[in-house]
């Protein structure tokens, strides 16, 4: 569980991936910094801290390591459920990014934090959902609550989740035969 009282002293210039670079010597929030330091110490170069803001942390992980990182986050840091799973399509980088927002209900200190765990899956131009290379390991064993969110991500973006018991359509009609709708190549008619 989180022991926040022994966080490190405030750091300056931590490796932030993106932020409006206003002041180079900016103080990062301590508690969040403590959490990210724990992750960095355990996983070193496998993870990449995207940003550390008050109450919000984002970590980028490769898809091979995401399950281990997720287990660590659940067991050691104490986040106990996933609030939502979002898929973002980046056609220019030929990748689909899946972001898991993790939260905590029981610990009062962690209750405000949301940790965004993001991975990327390769994107194909002619998708065949379920049978092409756009695959990610499913986090359902780690966080049970992602079951329906991952199904929606599968149907909307075509990302197949290995290990999910039921990769099936949820919101789209059963006879949908077009591109997964949230991809950027799928254009709404008339726009």
């Amino acid at each position: 569980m989180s022991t926040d009282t022994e966080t490190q002293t405030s750091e300056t210039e931590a490796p932030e991936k993106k932020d409006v670079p206003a002041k180079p010597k900016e103080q990062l929030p301590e508690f969040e910094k403590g959490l990210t330091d724990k992750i960095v110490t355990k996983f070193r170069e496998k993870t990449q801290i995207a940003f550390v803001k008050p109450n919000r942390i984002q970590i980028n992980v490769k898809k091979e390591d995401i399950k281990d990182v997720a287990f660590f986050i659940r067991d050691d840091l104490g986040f106990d459920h996933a609030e939502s799973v979002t898929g973002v399509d980046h056609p220019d980088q030929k990748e689909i990014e899946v972001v898991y927002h993790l939260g905590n209900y029981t610990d009062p200190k962690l209750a405000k934090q949301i940790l965004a765990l993001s991975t990327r899956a390769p994107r194909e131009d002619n998708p065949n959902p379920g049978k092409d290379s756009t695959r990610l390991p499913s986090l359902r064993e780690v966080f049970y609550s992602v079951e329906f969110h991952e199904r929606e991500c599968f149907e909307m973006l075509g990302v197949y989740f290995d290990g999910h018991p039921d990769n099936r359509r949820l919101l789209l009609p059963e006879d949908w035969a077009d591109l997964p709708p949230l991809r950027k190549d799928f254009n709404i008619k008339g726009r």
Partner: protein
Amino acid sequence: MSAKLPPGLALQKVDERIMTLNVGPQHPGSGHMRLIIQVDGDYIVGCDPDPGYVHRGEEKMAEYRNYITNIPHLERPVIHDSCNILYPYCLATEEIVGIEVPERAKYVRVIASELNRCVYTMYWLAIYGIFLGHSTMFMWPAGDRELLIDLLEKMTGARVTHAYFVPGGVRNDVPANFEDVCLRQVNYFEKRIKEYADIFYNNPILIHRTEKAGILSREDAIRLGTTGSVLRASGVDFDVRTKEPYDAYGELDVHTNVLKEGDSLARSKIPWMDMLESCNIIRQALEKMPKSGTVRTKLKPNPKGGDVSVYKRVESGRGSLGCYIVSKSRPEPYRVKLSVGSFRNLIAIPYLLKGEKLGNMPAVYWSLNYWPVEADR
């Protein structure tokens, strides 16, 4: 019938003992979604929810409109509670664009949000009455709700789908004598809903039907990621308004109602207790509201932010509603995702209905505070 089925459909063998029921979209007891239930005698052995009948592609449409024109269509998923579903979107947009909301606007937002929460909860209670066959439980909430809709109409101009919240504040100021009218109506409303305790919640048949039906334990509630009244009825003290206060909630005194049993009776009581709490919040907000000031920060035309991604959440009538916006320096957001409370509670429906009696199905299903339109977006 051709041998080749369209993709997504499958043939299933009909079992002799287990009957598959379609509690479907055109059923007086289901709302606009379908539950495929497998029944063995009187016990439900399998449940497969099939939402998606009201899916409109809100998130896809949001990528084609800029931050301001996104507002009218993003509030449509829950028409009664429309302020609450726009709230995280507005908060996120304000952070992306980098503007501050004036003080008076924060309090007006709090009042509108609480009124919307009450309006939604009354509607939910009314439908709960119909599912249980209690016609008075339908008529009273539907009638008392009109008091609050009247207030909202004075405030925003529309009864439902107000399109009132904009990034930067609210669209227009409340009318001149609004504080007095609001106080009077809220006091009367509170008196009315206190009478519900006698006829609904102390009703022996209601208690008999909902007590111990669909018990959700505390660990399961946390593990399943449920939210809102479902979570609080299972003993978890979590409310975004107190844990992560936004706008003026930091200065108000919000009390969270928690019950421990986790059955349908507790889940049907918590929204009612929350409504009483909302009346308190509205009264406090009316007192503390700054008496004058602007309610809107003017935006430059076509506002846009940098390459950021923001996640904000708010407590709505169904639970915590989050909005994740990815922006890439264009007037349109790159990706908008609404993480709604109903979708997060969807996982509890098959989990709880397995093993329940068929007669308990309406009581358990609707007590999970599931609003099909919102879950489909």
